[in-house]
């Protein structure tokens, strides 16, 4: 696991930090631990990194929801029954709902029952960030479309703008919907929008996103799309991949192998 993390760090362009990889391993379950500032990069360079994700659905076990469980625990995502007040960051959707604009006639039996993990695409051209009137949601220096919960006014413009249904609003206080609190990420308040953050709180400590680590089929590859030597770029070069609704020009950073 440490070996894997060190590998990830090296590949991810934190070459200078690779030697400190072990020191970077902070226990996410304890929020109030001593901080080790040496693991953080200084001022980030804009555009040097663009985080991306490749989901190989061939290795995504049928009926498994471990990615979503790990993510939702890590980030204190509440669980409310029913779809109306639902909050979700990563979840499985039937193939034809995740890719409604792909060919639908005469699907193979495999596609007919395929479910794929869906999450925020961290678009390079995010319509949500454009629509936000306060820049509470914005594209970060590393391509992550981030949320500033302290600034969000809850107008839900981003939800209308997102063509992937990736955003959730806190229609009520989320805390009653959280069974066990994780100390690695704050909860949210009622009245703000939230979504997947590509585990930016883990990345900064040199860890992989929770869903990547939780996947028993190792179906998710995570890395720097701007680094031609990264694993994800190698896979993208080798395999035939898809993005959700590419015709909208949002340039998603999440890719799929079907």
């Amino acid at each position, binding site marked *: 696991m440490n070996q894997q993390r060190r590998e990830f760090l090296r590949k991810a362009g934190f070459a*200078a930090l690779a030697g400190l990889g072990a020191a970077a391993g902070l226990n996410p379950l304890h929020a109030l631990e001593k901080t080790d500032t040496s693991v953080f990069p200084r*001022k980030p360079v804009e555009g040097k990194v663009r985080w991306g994700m490749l989901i190989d659905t061939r290795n995504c076990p049928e009926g498994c929801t471990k990615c979503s469980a790990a993510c939702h625990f890590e980030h204190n995502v509440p669980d409310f029954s029913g779809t109306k007040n639902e909050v979700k960051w990563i979840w499985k959707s039937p193939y034809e709902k995740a890719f409604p604009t792909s060919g639908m006639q005469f699907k193979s039996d495999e596609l007919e029952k395929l479910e794929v993990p869906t999450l925020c695409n961290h678009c390079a051209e995010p319509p949500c960030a454009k629509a936000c009137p306060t820049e509470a949601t914005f594209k970060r220096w590393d391509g992550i479309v981030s949320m500033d919960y302290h600034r969000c006014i809850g107008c839900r413009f981003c939800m209308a703008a997102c063509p992937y249904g990736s955003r959730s609003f806190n229609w009520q206080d989320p805390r009653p919907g959280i069974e066990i609190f994780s100390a690695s990420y704050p909860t949210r308040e009622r009245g703000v929008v939230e979504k997947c953050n590509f585990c930016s709180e883990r990345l900064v400590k040199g860890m992989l996103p929770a869903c990547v680590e939780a996947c028993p089929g190792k179906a998710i590859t995570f890395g720097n799309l701007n680094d031609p030597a990264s694993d994800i770029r190698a896979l993208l070069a080798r395999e035939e991949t898809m993005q959700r609704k590419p015709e909208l020009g949002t340039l998603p950073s999440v890719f799929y192998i079907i």
Partner: protein
Amino acid sequence: MRKNILMSAWIALALLLAVGIFMQQESGAGTEPSATASGKSESTSCVYPKEFMKSHHMQVLDEWRHDSVREGDRIHVTPDGREFEKSLNTCLDCHSRNKMFCFMCHQYANVKPTCWNCHLSPMEVTK
């Protein structure tokens, strides 16, 4: 109060810009911004003088939040060269011996900060 926050935000922004320009020049010269190996922030004194923190910790936290969330600038360097992660947890960690550290003062001053609506308070974290 709001004016103060705005003021300090502007100052922080100006500083950031200055730092940004400085950094750019540096990276232009071909050096990569690298992490220092100063290790853990074992410290017995605060990031700012005690009196200043008493009156301005909310502004400090607000600036820290802005810097780390929005700019990715996560390290606070004190004038004497000590480094801290710009995080509420840095404060809570240092003051972890007294779980009531925040509450005592806030209760005395009868202020109700909204921090704990989202951040887990020291009372909620089991260690």
